Every structure is written in C-alpha cells, then in structure tokens.
C-alpha cells in the first residue's frame, strides 16, 4: 500500500502540517525557546524542557502558560530553568513559553502545541534493593522495588536484568522478567544460577524497566539502567589460590565446571580431574576453569580436582560423586518386647557417599507425630531403627525418610503393633522331671506381653532322632518366666527339648529356638514279659528255657535279671533268678511237666510274666519241606492244623562263624499258614533248618521240619566225576554228589559237556567249543551216564557242572581217548594195496600188448627224426621257413664229422655245391623255396672248414648218411668259455678252428653277395669275429637264460658246432635261452644211439 505515490504525498503533507503546529509561533528571536521535549515517569506530570540561546542577558526567566485542548483558562508558571513540570493531558497541550528578562519584560514568546504522541513515558530508574549470592548453589538472588505506587492502577511492567563479567564487561546473561504493577510498591525478586561457581569470577548486575500502558498513545521507552551492583564476595574468600567448588557433592552423570583461582604472578600449568587433564578455559587473569562432563561415581575419599601452578603450587578440591538415596526397600517394623518397635529396611542402590555425605534416615510416625533419627552404618546391607512403643497406641503409621545432599526418598508402613510381635529368644530354659513320663519346662522371655497371648512350641527329640512338636498357649506377662509340661514320654528315655514362642492370636514370626536341654525320664517296670521258648533235652530230664531280651522301649530301664519259675497247678515248684546278660537257663523237670514263667526285672519293678508249658506232644512222620528263597528272606508255608489253638512257633538255630548256634524262634498266630523269615544273620547260599511247632492245648508238637535258603547261589564246586569205561564209540561217566555246604542252593541237575579235543588245546572253556554237545541231567538220582556214538581212537574233552536255581556252578573237565576200531584200520590198509596191485597188473598187460609201439616210440633202434618230438620241436622253431627241415638247417657244418660209410665222390660234389656262395646266397631269400627245401644234406660248410675236412675220406653218402654227432657239447664248450678251456677243445676236435679266424671268410662272402642285407637275412651265420655277440650267446650267459626267442638256433642238428652263428643278428640279444634248453635235448638224442 506504501507503494501508492498519492498516499505517500498525503502523508508528507500531514507531517509538514504537524511541524507547523509546533513551531507556528516562532518569532525568530535568539532567546526564543525551541525544541520542546516532554517526558513523563508517572503519566501524571511531565517534564518539558526546551532549548533557548543564552545571550549576555543574565537573569532570564520563562513564563510557561499551558492550556489543554479544552477551553480552559491557561495556567501560567514562571521558572528560571529551561524546564517545567506540567500535567500530562490527553490529546494536545498548548504551551506558550515566554522568555522574560530580569526586569520581567518579555523578550520572546513561543507557542507549542504538544500532542500526546510526543510525550515519552520513561519509567523511573529502578533501584536494586539487594543482591545476594548462594555460593553453594551458584545462585544469585536479586531484589528490587517495582515502584508500583507511582501508578494508581494495575499496569504491566517488563524488566530486563543484565549480568556482566566484572572484568571484561561481557554480558553473561540478559533476562527479561515481566510483572504486574498493582498500584502499590512491591519488592520483586529474581534468582539466577550460574553454571560455574560464583567464586570463579565476579559479576555485575543491573536492571531497567518498561511500562506498558496500552491507553497512552505517547512514546513508551525503557527506563535507564539501574546503577551496577557487584556480586558480593564470599566472606571467606581466601587470599591464597584455590579450586572451586570446594567439596561439592553431585549426582553421577552431572556436568561440573571447576575453576582454579591463583594470585598475580602465578600461572596455571594444568588442571586435572582425577588423573585426566582437561582443556583450560580462561575466565579472567586470575582464574581458569575446566568443564567435566558426565562424572562417574567417586571413591569414598572423593575425586580430586587439582591445578598445578607455576612457579610452585598445588591446589585442589574434592568432588564427591554419587547417587540420591534409593527408596528404602523391604521396610518392616516389628516389636520384640513391646518397648520398642524395630524397623528394618534395605537401602537399595548404594549412594557411594559416606560419612558426612551419607544418607540420613528419619523415622516419622504420623499419628504421634514423633520422629527419630536413625543411626545406620552405610556399609551394612540392612539398616535398623528403633521407635518407642507408646502406651495405648496400637496403630503406627511410619514414614521412613532418606536424604543426602543429592536428594531424598521415603517409604511408608502402617502396622498394628500387636500383630507384629517377634519375641526374643526364650532364655533361662530349664527342664526337669520327677516321673518316668512327664517333664516340666520353664523359660524366660523379656518384654511386656500383658495385652497378648503367647503361643510356644516345644520340640522334643528323643535319642532315636525322632522329633515331636507340642504347642502350648499361655497368657502373656511382663518380663516373666513361662512354664509348661509335657507328658507321654517314654520311661528311661533321653530327650532334648527346645522352645520358641510367638504371639498366639496374630501370628507374625517365631522367635529363635532356645538352647536345647537334655533330660532322661525315670525308669518304669518293663512293659511286657520277654518272648520265651523252651527245649527239652533228648533224655527229657532237663528243660532249657530261652528268652529274648526286651527292646529298650519295652524294658523301661536297665534289665537287671530274669526270674524263671516253674508252676504246676498254680503252685510254684521252682524259681530262680538269672542275671543279665544270660538269656537261657536249665530246669530239671524230674519227670514232671510244669508251666514255665519268666519275668524281666529292672530297678522300677518286674514285667508281667511270660508263660510256656514244658509239655511236648509226640509227633510222627515229620516231613522235611523245602522253603523258597525270596532273596532277602525265607518263605515258609505249612498246612493249617485245626488242633493248633495257641499259635505256631518256628524255631531255628542260626550259627554265625565258629560260635555254637543260637536258638531263635518266632511265633505266629493259629490262623497263620505261611511267613517270610528274615534275619540279619541270614547269609546267601547257606542252608537253614527250621522246626515248626504247633501249640496245642496240652503242649507243643513238632509238625514239620523245613529247610531253605535266604538266597540260592550257584554251586560252589564242580561235581567230582570220573570215566568208568571207554570203548571205541562210547564213554561211561560217573560222578559223585556235591557236599551240601558246597551246593549253596537246592541242586537242580547237572550239565555234561563233551567235545573232541586234545589236552594241549588252548581252549579253556566249553563255551568256546564249536562242536560241543551238552546233556542236561535233571534226574538227581542218576549218578552215571554213557555217551554213545563217539569215534574210535579220538580224544574227547568232558566237562560236568551242577546247577541250582541260583545258577550254574563251576566246571570240571577231563580228557579221554576212545579205544581203537581194528576193522576200520584193516580196511584202510587193504583198499590202497588192492588198488595198487590192480593198477600194476593192468599196466603190465597194456605194456605187453603195445610193446612194439612203445619200443618204436621210445626206444627205436634208429631214431626217426620225423617222429622225434625233440625234432618236431625244432620244426616248430623253424616255422616260416619250411625249407629248413630238421637237419637242413642251413648253414650247418659239423666241425667234426665221422663218416661211417664211404661214398666219397657223391659227398664231395655235394659239399662243393653247398659251399658255393652263390647257392648260399639264394637260400635265405625265400625259405619256402621247394628247390632249396629238397636239399637233404648238410647244406652248409664253411669254406675254411671245407679245406680241412675235404682231405679225410668221406665215408657216408647223403642219402643214408649215418652221422654220428660226437660230443657236441664238448665241442661247443670252447665257445662258451674259450679263454678257460681252449686246449681241451682243440684236443677233442681236431677239425675245429677257432672262429676268430672267420673274418677272412666273411669278407670273402661279402664280395660275393649282392648286398650285405641279403646276406644277413638269408644266412643264419654271422662272422664269429664278433666276440661280444658270441659271448652273449653262450649258453651259460645269464642273459641267455631269460631269453625265449623262437628264432634261437638251438636244436639245429645241422649246425651243432656253430649254431651260435645261425642266429640272425637282430635276435642275438634275445635268443640265448633256447641254446641252453636245447643242449639238454640234444644230449639226449645224441647219446641215445650210443646207449
């Protein structure tokens, strides 16, 4: 809207008009007043001041006449100063100020129209009445007068309080505070808490005021600031350096600022909280501070905060950090004596503050409005406090207040003291008796219990640790002894008594038990007569009377003796006293039966008598029955006997160890037919014998004998057994009974084991035997057994064990060998002999019939090479070259040939042909060549040899040549080991030449052969100059043994002397084995003809 130019123009015109109103009367004289300003403090009067030029004229005065806008007559006042006090009016005020000289002559007159808006409302400058400080809480307290009486009505006032650092004059805080003026003077107060100790630095405080009169249209302004007030210094402000705050207690987790004050000339090195250094905040030139955040609980002597000063100084303070007290927990109040009420509670969380700073407890009772301060030990887990019981007050409403420097807490409890009685432990407890069944008790309880009844509990413990509680109610008394008595005690028994008490009507808690007191009651006569039995001697002259000692509870004292008497028709015949500890006596009957009476006696008297007759009734056919073992006792049953009128007695005599057996008995009513007998003396595996007597009108009769075990065990020993007789297929075994004491139970049978086995066998148990046989013999009368179907002359192992219900006993074994079976043996010898004879006969016949064939085959006069298996073998070797038949192995030239038949011409031609290298070279090309195959002659003779053998006469023609191969092996030997036995070879084989000479021939052959390869292939021969190869080929060569080359030259009868060289070169290394094998075959055939 201000953007509108016409509107702005209007406002400017209005403003100029207003100015014209104020200064409209200006005359232009120098003395004329100007710049009229009016202020009001109370909206009643205003002080107007103006400026006027002071001329040389002294003694100027001013006449001020003012009128309100109403047509009132003007009021005029004269003043010498340039200010006047005139009333504040609503709207405008016309003010005419005339300057007068000393003589009263007006010099100048100025008229002002003062609108209300131009009047300023400035409240009176407030004055601080009081500024005080609480150094412990860092709080400043400010008080001032609001001068409300200046205005006669309520007004809103605002105050501004400024706190400044004294030294730096920095504003620490500027706070606004609103109040209401009430028309009367009021003292206003305000407080401010610093976040650092007030000792750390000094502060200034000032205040000003603003009055908000909404209906005053003039200017409203803040008053002047009040004069500065300084925060008063602590009275005990030290001159020496110090650290603040001193010994302050704060909550865990608080933020605390500490400052260190020091003197001029000193400086601060560092400041630490505990052992940790904090950055210093400089407050002023003599004070620095540190801020510690979130402090944790301190040790009991507090956390030290200290600053180290230079040049020398250590200053510090202690901060105690802890917790406000927890609400007292489990507050409980009770009275022990009705004199005091004791309240107890648990403090809850520890405050970590001690001594002066620890929690203080005050117990306040609301009804009586009394309170007590409780002395507690902070270190104890439970606290107590006593409050006096008031007469005629039953209900107490307690409030327990806990407080420490950090806070307070409280717990309340409402009680009826008569319902919270917890008596003290009964004291001076005594017990006494003057009878065998009663006891008197007395005890003392401190306190005044007149208004309640007491309930006491008496605990009675006897010597068997049996406990009994008796309660007794009694009227309460004041600090009194209380009495009670207990009855139904056992005579001559020791008891321990204790007592505890409580309030009867409103049970709260039992007191502690009193100390225990022991008491033994007096003796009384035995409660009953002893159990008795009697046994007549075999002759019947004497009767032994037995009795059992009474139980302690029945004896009612110490049994001194037993009186045994014998009555016949109510007349006592005999009586005598048997002292303890005897429990039997003999009575001579003298042929008369009597009624025996036994009485037990102690100091207090005699027991009622126990009676038994001495009469025995005859019994016949008394059977012995077996009892059943139950494991912990013996079950015995008997047939009911209608004649038995006064019960059964079961008697036994149990011996323990080496002592003679002790007679024991047990009685049963007449209707009983069975019983389980138990005794600590019973042992498992031991046989016990019982006799059952029936009590009949006229006496006792033996009804039956019973034998049994408490627990049956396996037999202790194995039955003793022997072999009575053995045959080839059976054994007769005989055994003996096991003694009764070793049976440990009723024998049920035997188990006989047998199995084949030698004595040396390592097997120790029959359970290991796989082929064992076992026989169960349940017939106990049987004492022998024949084992059949055994093998003759065989060792058997036999074992025998006995068994009872309790288990199987140990094993006894022995070895037995059955006798020999002669028929079988004979058959076993005869059959092989017969078979051998038959075989011999058949063979002989066959041989005879086929003798020709055999001879032909095995012993021909002239061996047929075709049929020779050995030669057949050779044929196989030469497979692939059919031309090479047995003796046609080519080349092959015996070094020594003995010609038996002389056909010199033919042989010579043949030899020549054979020698021909041309012919030689043709051979190997095709092994299957029919032409080559047709040569049935020794087809190869080395040229060198030829020269030598050509000279001796050739006896044998080719066609039917009888070649005798002589000692080929010996001839060969030199080749095997030429170095060792060269001479021998030369001697035996004259025609032989060492093959070392062969190279000449080889060269010769080479020149004739088309190619060297052809030669190698076709001719098995290799120049023997190759000594290495030769050696390898030797039959004894280790390598040769391993070889299995089919192409080995062995067996070639045409090349006996030089078959080594028939081997194709490529096979040299693989072939030797055959040579070796071949030798043995060769020898065989070679030697045959000679044989």
């Amino acid at each position, binding site marked *: 809207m201000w953007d509108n130019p016409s509107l702005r123009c209007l406002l400017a015109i209005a403003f100029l008009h207003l100015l014209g109103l104020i200064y409209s009367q200006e005359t232009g004289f120098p003395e004329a007043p100007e710049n009229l300003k009016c202020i009001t403090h109370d909206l009643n009067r205003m002080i107007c001041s103006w400026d006027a030029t002071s001329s040389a004229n002294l003694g100027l005065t001013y006449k001020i006449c003012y009128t309100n806008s109403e047509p009132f007559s003007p009021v005029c006042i004269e003043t010498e100063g340039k200010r006047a006090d005139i009333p504040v009016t609503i709207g405008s005020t016309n003010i005419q100020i005339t300057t007068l000289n000393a003589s009263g002559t007006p010099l100048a007159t100025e008229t002002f129209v003062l609108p209300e808006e131009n009047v300023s409302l400035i409240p009176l400058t407030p004055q601080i009445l009081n500024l005080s400080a609480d150094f412990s809480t860092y709080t400043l307290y400010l008080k001032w007068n609001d001068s409300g009486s200046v205005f006669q009505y309520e007004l809103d006032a605002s105050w501004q309080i400024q706190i400044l650092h004294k030294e730096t004059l920095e504003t620490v805080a500027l706070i606004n505070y609103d109040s209401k003026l009430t028309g009367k003077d009021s003292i206003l107060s305000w407080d401010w808490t610093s976040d650092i100790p007030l000792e750390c630095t000094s502060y200034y405080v000032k205040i000003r005021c603003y009055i908000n009169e909404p209906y005053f249209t003039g200017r409203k302004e803040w008053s002047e600031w009040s004069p500065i007030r300084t925060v008063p210094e602590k009275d005990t402000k030290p001159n020496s350096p110090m650290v603040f705050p001193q010994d302050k207690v704060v909550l865990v987790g608080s933020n605390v600022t500490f400052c260190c004050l020091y003197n001029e000339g000193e400086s601060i090195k560092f400041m630490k909280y*505990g052992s940790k250094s904090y950055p210093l905040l400089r407050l002023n030139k003599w004070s620095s501070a540190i801020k510690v955040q979130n402090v944790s609980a301190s040790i*009991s*002597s*507090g956390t030290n905060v200290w600053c180290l000063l230079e040049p020398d100084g250590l200053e510090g303070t*202690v901060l105690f950090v802890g917790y406000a007290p927890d609400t007292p927990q489990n507050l409980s109040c009770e009275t022990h004596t009705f004199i005091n009420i004791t309240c107890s509670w648990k403090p809850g969380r520890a405050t970590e503050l001690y*001594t002066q700073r620890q929690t203080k407890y005050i117990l306040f009772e609301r009804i009586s409005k009394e309170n007590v301060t409780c002395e507690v030990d902070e*270190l104890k887990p439970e606290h107590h406090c006593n409050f006096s019981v008031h007469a005629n007050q039953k209900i107490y409403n307690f409030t327990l207040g806990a407080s420490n420097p950090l806070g307070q807490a409280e717990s309340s409890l409402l009680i009826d003291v008569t319902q919270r009685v917890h008596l003290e432990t009964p004291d001076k407890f005594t017990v006494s008796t003057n009878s065998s069944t009663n006891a008197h008790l007395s005890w003392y309880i401190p306190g005044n219990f007149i208004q309640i009844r007491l309930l006491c509990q008496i605990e009675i413990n006897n010597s068997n640790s049996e406990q009994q509680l008796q309660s007794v109610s009694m009227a309460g008394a004041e600090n009194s002894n209380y009495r009670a008595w207990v009855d139904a005690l056992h005579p001559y028994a020791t008891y321990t008594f204790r007592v505890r008490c409580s309030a009867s009507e409103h049970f709260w808690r039992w007191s502690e038990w009193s100390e225990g007191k022991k008491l033994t009651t007096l003796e009384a006569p035995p409660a009953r007569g002893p159990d008795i039995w009697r046994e007549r001697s075999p002759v019947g002259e004497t009767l032994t009377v037995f009795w059992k000692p009474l139980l302690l509870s029945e004896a009612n004292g110490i049994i001194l003796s037993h009186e045994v008497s014998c009555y016949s028709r109510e007349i006592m015949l005999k009586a005598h006293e048997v002292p303890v500890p005897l429990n039997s006596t003999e009575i001579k009957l003298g042929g008369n039966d009597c009624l025996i009476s036994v009485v037990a006696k102690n100091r207090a008297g005699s027991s009622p008598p126990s009676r038994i007759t001495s009469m025995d009734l005859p019994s016949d056919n008394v059977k012995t029955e077996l009892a059943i073992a139950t494991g912990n006792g013996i079950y015995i049953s008997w047939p009911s006997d209608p004649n038995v009128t006064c019960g059964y007695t079961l008697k036994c005599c149990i011996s323990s160890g080496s002592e003679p057996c002790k007679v024991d008995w047990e009685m049963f009513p007449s209707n009983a037919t069975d019983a389980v007998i138990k005794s600590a003396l019973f042992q498992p595996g031991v046989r016990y014998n019982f006799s059952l007597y029936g009590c009949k009108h006229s006496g006792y009769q033996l009804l039956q004998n019973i034998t049994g075990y408490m627990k049956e065990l396996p037999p202790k020993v194995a039955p003793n057994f022997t072999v009575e007789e053995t045959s080839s297929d059976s054994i007769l075994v005989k055994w003996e009974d096991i003694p009764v004491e070793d049976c440990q139970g009723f024998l049920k049978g035997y188990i006989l084991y047998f199995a084949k086995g030698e004595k040396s066998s390592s097997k120790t148990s029959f359970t290991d035997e796989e082929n064992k046989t076992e026989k169960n013999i349940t017939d106990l009368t049987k004492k022998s057994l024949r084992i059949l179907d055994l093998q003759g002359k065989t060792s058997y192992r036999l074992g025998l064990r006995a068994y009872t219900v309790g288990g199987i006993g140990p094993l006894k074994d022995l070895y037995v060998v059955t006798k020999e079976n002669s028929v079988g043996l004979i058959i076993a010898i005869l059959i092989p002999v017969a078979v051998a004879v038959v075989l011999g006969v058949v063979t002989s016949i066959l041989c005879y019939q086929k003798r020709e064939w055999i001879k032909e085959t095995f012993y021909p006069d002239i061996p047929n090479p075709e049929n020779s298996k050995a030669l057949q073998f050779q044929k196989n070797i030469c497979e692939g070259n059919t031309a090479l038949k047995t003796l046609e192995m080519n080349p092959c030239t015996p070094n020594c040939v003995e010609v038996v038949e002389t056909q010199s011409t033919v042989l010579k031609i043949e030899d020549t042909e054979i020698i021909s290298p041309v012919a030689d070279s043709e051979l190997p090309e095709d092994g299957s060549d029919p032409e080559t195959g047709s040569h049935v002659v020794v087809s190869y003779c080395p040229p060198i040899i030829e020269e030598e053998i050509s000279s001796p006469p050739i006896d044998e023609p080719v066609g039917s040549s009888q070649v005798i191969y002589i000692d080929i092996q010996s001839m060969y030997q030199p080749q095997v080991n030429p170095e060792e036995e060269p001479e021998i070879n030369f001697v035996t084989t004259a025609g032989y030449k060492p093959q070392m000479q062969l190279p000449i021939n080889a060269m010769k052959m080479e020149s004739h052969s088309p190619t060297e390869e052809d030669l190698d292939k076709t001719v098995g021969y290799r120049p023997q100059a190759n000594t290495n190869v030769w050696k390898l080929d030797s039959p004894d060569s280790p390598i040769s043994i391993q070889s299995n080359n089919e192409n080995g030259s062995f067996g070639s009868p045409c090349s006996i002397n030089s078959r080594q060289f028939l081997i194709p070169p490529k096979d040299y290394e693989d072939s030797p084995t055959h040579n070796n094998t071949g030798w043995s075959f060769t020898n065989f055939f070679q030697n045959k003809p000679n044989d």
Partner: protein
Amino acid sequence: LHSTLAAQNLLVSLVLVQLARPDPNPSAATISQTYNLARLLQANTTKLLNTYLSTQGSPFSDPGFSALGLRWAGVPVATFPFLAWRSMGDSERLARNYGAYATFDAFLQLVWDDQDELCPDCSELLTMLGTARARTRGLLANLTSIMAAMGIPTPPATDPLTSEAAEVGAFEKKCRGYVVCREYHGWVDRTVRDFTLLKAKYPA
C-alpha cells in the same frame, strides 16, 4: 602381616617395660632402646606413607607421586643443615626430637580424624595411623626418660593445632595428611641418625 604387627607391638611393649625398670646407667640403655624403636618406626613410616597415598586418589595415588613443595604450617620439617645438626648439643638434639614428636602426635590424630571422615572404609590406613601415633607416644616417653636422666627439661606442652585445622577442605586435608606422613617419615629417619650419634656417645 598380623604376626609382624603383633611382633612389633610386643617389641614396643618390651621397650616400654624396659623403661619402667631402674637402670644403673639409665640414659645409655634407654638411648639404645630408643634407637631400636626408631629403627622399628623407620620400617613402618614408608609403608604408612605409601598406604596413605594409595587411598587418596589421583594425583596422590599416582605412581611416584611427590610434591616436595607442599608444606603445612606447624608440621615439623626434618631437613636441617648438616654442620649445625652434627655439632648440635645433646639437650638441643633431644629437645628438637621431643618437640617434633609432640607435634606429630597431634597431627597424626588429626590425620586419623580426617581419614575417618573422608575414607571410612580405609581400615588398614586407619589402623596404621593409630599404630604410628601409639609408637610416637612411646618414643616421646623414651625421650622424656632420657631427658630426665640427663637433666634436660622437657619443653612445655603446646597445642600445635588451631581450631581452624578442622575447617579445611577435603583436598587440603588430603594434602595435610600427605605432608604429615611425609615429614613424619623424614623425622623418624633423622631420629635414627640422632640416636646413632647418641648411642656412640653414650655406649651402654
């Protein structure tokens, strides 16, 4: 620990019993006994100082804490110029000892009170402070006996503590306790030296 304390107490008792006996050469024998007592005290003052420091929190409990500059008005200081000490007369030597321990007697009680308030659970420290004070009294009795035997008048009893002593801050109490324990330790050392000298001078 208890057995050694008991043994030490027994020794103190023996020393005190010895004092009660008439002795042909009282001062010489008592000097020797006092020397023994001082040696016994010497062993315990170090422990007292360490225990004290350990219970006061940092910086006192920091390892190797020492503030030799720290003083407390009225607490006797053991340091002394050597020559002056060496040439000191017997009466002055004994009187100074007497004066020092009379003051320590009061200060040890003050420290006990301070610690009972500041550190109620420091039972070991409180026991040691109590023991130290008892032994100081024993030492004072010995000194009185020697001085009486030598004809030296005992200095008049003065209360070294003012009422302001109790109104100091907790930190100052801790500092005061430290100074008392430290100077007590120093003075016992000095007494041992004094009596070494006296023992040589008055052989039993």
